[in-house]
């Protein structure tokens, strides 16, 4: 069992979990992920290593509740434990001096992009970040990002924080300005919902700005054994867990990917409904006992 050292709510549906896993912390690098199992009957869930502390032997995970497993994970508290934490998995981000880089994060994507931005800054890049969310209350880690970036732009769909609009708006403006000024195109990283990563890749393509995305496919083992994480890129099928998770956004077959991540949607809904039914059942029972 892997003890949870600390938890912290970040938004209504997102929480931070610091877990004791020295075997992962010792070699974790930006861009890598772990596969965790929360309970005895749990499934293997991929989560990015948002931060690590080699001295304390811990890693930090940021979890957004989207289904049964992630919802249950957010009920964990300090002293609880994960059944399994395996990793680090996937290739680390290639850190190089590009000059300017733009890190675009949508929603919970700010967590996985944070160590990438931090390390890109550390190797000498000028790091601009664009953080987007639907509403102000869904934003988090602006302060952390501000510490490791040269510029932070915030935008929300409804204008409740930062500028109103999608992350692609400030991105395109920036690229246009740099292009007009004859500056070399920045390297763009984008992490967030698949739809958003597709939108960013489409937006940067006309500018020829190299774009790296970190894909969130369905995974089982995370070690190259099942092929469930397959994605189509120009030279055929790749396994996201071992060939990625980062890919050239201009090279990904987005429509195929968007279809593949919904394959188990009916079953996931069934699991969530069954879990909710069990919980309400419990509440009624406690009420009845009183």
């Amino acid at each position, binding site marked *: *069992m*892997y*003890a949870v050292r600390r938890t912290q709510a970040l938004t209504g549906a997102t929480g931070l979990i610091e877990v*004791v*896993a*020295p*075997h*992962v912390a010792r*070699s974790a690098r930006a861009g*890598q992920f772990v596969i965790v*199992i929360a309970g005895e*009957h*749990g*499934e*293997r869930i991929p989560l990015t290593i948002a931060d690590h502390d080699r001295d304390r*032997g811990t890693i930090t995970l940021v979890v957004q509740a989207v289904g*049964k*497993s992630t919802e249950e994970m957010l009920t964990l508290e300090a002293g609880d*434990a*994960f*059944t*399994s*934490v*395996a*990793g*680090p*998995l996937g290739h680390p981000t290639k850190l190089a001096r590009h000059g300017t880089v733009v890190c675009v994060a949508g929603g919970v994507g700010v967590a996985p992009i944070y160590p990438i931005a931090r390390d890109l800054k550390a190797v000498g890049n000028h790091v601009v970040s664009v953080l987007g969310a639907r509403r102000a209350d869904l934003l988090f880690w602006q302060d952390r990002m501000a510490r490791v970036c040269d510029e932070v732009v915030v935008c929300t769909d409804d204008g409740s924080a930062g500028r109103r609009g999608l992350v692609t708006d400030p991105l395109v403006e920036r690229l246009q300005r740099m292009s007009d000024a004859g500056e070399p195109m920045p390297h763009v990283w984008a992490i967030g919902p698949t739809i958003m990563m597709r939108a960013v890749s489409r937006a940067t393509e006309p500018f020829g700005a190299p774009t790296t995305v970190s894909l969130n496919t369905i995974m*089982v*083992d995370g*070690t*190259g*054994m*099942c*092929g*469930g994480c*397959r*994605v*189509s890129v120009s030279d055929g*099928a790749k396994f996201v867990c*071992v060939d990625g998770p980062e890919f050239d956004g201009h090279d990904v*077959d987005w*429509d*195929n990917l968007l*279809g*593949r991540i*919904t*394959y*188990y949607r009916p*079953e*996931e809904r*069934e*699991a969530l409904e*069954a*879990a909710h039914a069990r919980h309400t059942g419990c509440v009624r029972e406690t009420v009845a006992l009183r």
Partner: protein
Amino acid sequence: MTLSNKERYAIPRQDMPTQDAHERAANFEEVALGLTWEAARLEAQRCIQCKNPHCVDGCPVGVRIPDVLLALGDGDLAAAVDALTERNSLPAVCGRVCPQESQCEARCTLGAKHEPVAIGRLERFLGDHALQQHILPAAPLEHTGRRVAVVGSGPSGLTCAVDLAKLGHAVTIFESLHLPGGVLAYGIPEFRLPRSIITAEVRTAVEHLNIELRTDHVIGTTYTLVELREDYDAVFLGTGAGLPAFMDIPGTNLNGVFSANELLTRVNLMRGYAFPEYDTPVKAGERVAVIGAGNVAMDAARSALRLQRLRAAAHPQTGPGEVHVVYRRSEAEVPARREEYTHAVEEGVVFDFLTNPVAVLGDGGRVTALRCVRMELGEPDESGRRRPRAVAGSELDLVADTVIFALGTSPNPLVFTGAANLDRSRWGTVLADEATGRTHLEGVWAGGDVVTGAATVISAMGAGKAAAADMHTFLLAHAPKGPSRLEASPGTVRSADA
């Protein structure tokens, strides 16, 4: 009371009782039910105790078969178990999954005129008895001060670990998944090899011998082979051949196309058949096409069939479903064990022989059909099997919502990240000495599927055994490195329990 050979010949080979085909196709419980004590004893008495027992030559770990059978025939179960476990640390597993008909039983002298002794069934009987009675392996010898890292907890790694631990070495197994067993745990379905058997057999071996099992360790990223080699006195690689192959035809990334490994992992390792009680979903549609006809294909087809039947029982409004095995050669060439093939046919799997897929067709991103061509058999090829060739103009579409590739696997290259210059073949397998498992890197051995490519449980165990013997000599000839610097993470060390 000693029987004459004539009396022994007169005893018929004892049949294995099985669950009724119709019933078992709707559950994941074990198909073969096991011999009774009387039947097992009778079967053992069929052995004529050959002076030159060829059966033993057919066993990759050299089980002393006549001694085992003699003791069992005499009713001395303890002695029979002892003789068996001396060479085989996983008898309840091997008795179930060894391809006996092409190994020990193929060489049995009785096979010439009568039927061979059912060695596998007896091995299963004894293995189960040992588990029920908690019969433990011999205690380890005095500690040698040497530490060994074994990578992978499949049959090769487990056997190597057990043999080295018995000789007094401190063994740590590193396993990337959360449970030990390799293919035994994630590939071979419950209805052929119940999880409880693997758990119990691994636990007996591991706990009694103080083997340290570190799950959730992916060698190549968590630690590299180079790190293990610097820290441990010797390293054994038993990482198997877990990488699935897909056919190079259009449409393989459509929704509804997956590898047999994915289906089997969801079903076995993650217990997806009990979804939503277990969290991992698995689905087999109403029209499933499995491509390939080896053991893996049989397991995938029979698992898919069970998922369909379970779903039909829970949701009577859905159709009963159909599972097809699509194979480019004919029935005579089916590479799966005969027993598995027969079981699949009995359960209702449909076989489309002389049929070869050329494309997966889809609509809206989902599979709708498998486009195939009819094949005919031509001249024999290098393997001696008649080479299939396409019949011109014979295209046909097989309606399918699920397509499962069961085409064989190759070694997972993850373990070779940071593995220095470990020599490999162009198929990605590790180059190692056949007799000893030595690789070109000093202090590193390899065995099992990672060396041979996909093979069998018992050949992997044989390789683990051979390597352990060679490693033992090496270890005693070299000074120990002392305490480890790669201390276990709290949490990663676990017993065999699921």
